[in-house]
């Protein structure tokens, strides 16, 4: 199943939506985990409300939903280490890198645009 025939493409998962209000963030993460098995060049971009996916201290008991935020910490174990977060999106929301639950690279809009432009496949959530 995970045979890519030696092809290595640059895959980017673009996350622009906050968690819990919709399922996109959770199901995006499920694709990311699967992609690890294919030995592709995978990166994740978090911009706009997508930066909220990574906030520390998520606690979902009251809404009776599954808290999937710990899974972001597991990505490193799958060799998925390119997590890019938009600096402007953090600033607009009064957030800093310290508020995030994983190590990320904070990038400017121009840097994010460069990263997007060099991808082979962009999946948007």
């Amino acid at each position, binding site marked *: 199943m995970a045979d890519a025939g030696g092809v290595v493409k640059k895959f980017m998962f673009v996350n622009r*939506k906050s968690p819990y*209000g919709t399922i996109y963030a959770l199901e995006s993460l499920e694709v990311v985990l699967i992609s690890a098995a294919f030995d592709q060049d995978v990166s994740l971009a978090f911009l706009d*409300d997508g930066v*909220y996916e990574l*906030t520390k201290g*998520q606690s979902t008991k009251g*809404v009776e939903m599954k808290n999937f935020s710990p899974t972001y910490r597991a990505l490193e174990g799958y060799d998925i280490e390119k997590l890019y977060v938009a600096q402007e999106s953090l600033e607009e929301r*009064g957030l800093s890198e310290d508020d995030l639950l994983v190590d990320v690279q904070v990038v400017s809009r121009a840097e994010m645009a460069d990263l997007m432009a060099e991808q082979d496949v962009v999946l948007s959530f």
Partner: protein
Amino acid sequence: MLHTVNKSPFERNTLKSCLAHVKPGSAVLLIEDGVYAALAGTVASDMVQQAMAEVSVYALGPDLDARGVANRVIDGVKVIDYAGFVDLVIEHPSTQSWL
């Protein structure tokens, strides 16, 4: 009248449209992704703080908790639970959901 808003103020025009139609003395309850509007220090905070001069603003606590932002709420925004949501609906003769 009770107005509920369930959309992020950064993503949609929903809260802005709601606040343009609330009358003094009415209440606005932020739920689901709408609770991001209840937070201090964002580019949407001013809009909410200005509205608080004329209307009461509430935020649903379980939604703040889920999103890990309960400790960032603007002073004066009242955090309530689902029981409080029910009370608000009862207190006001009608409810409008801004979707």
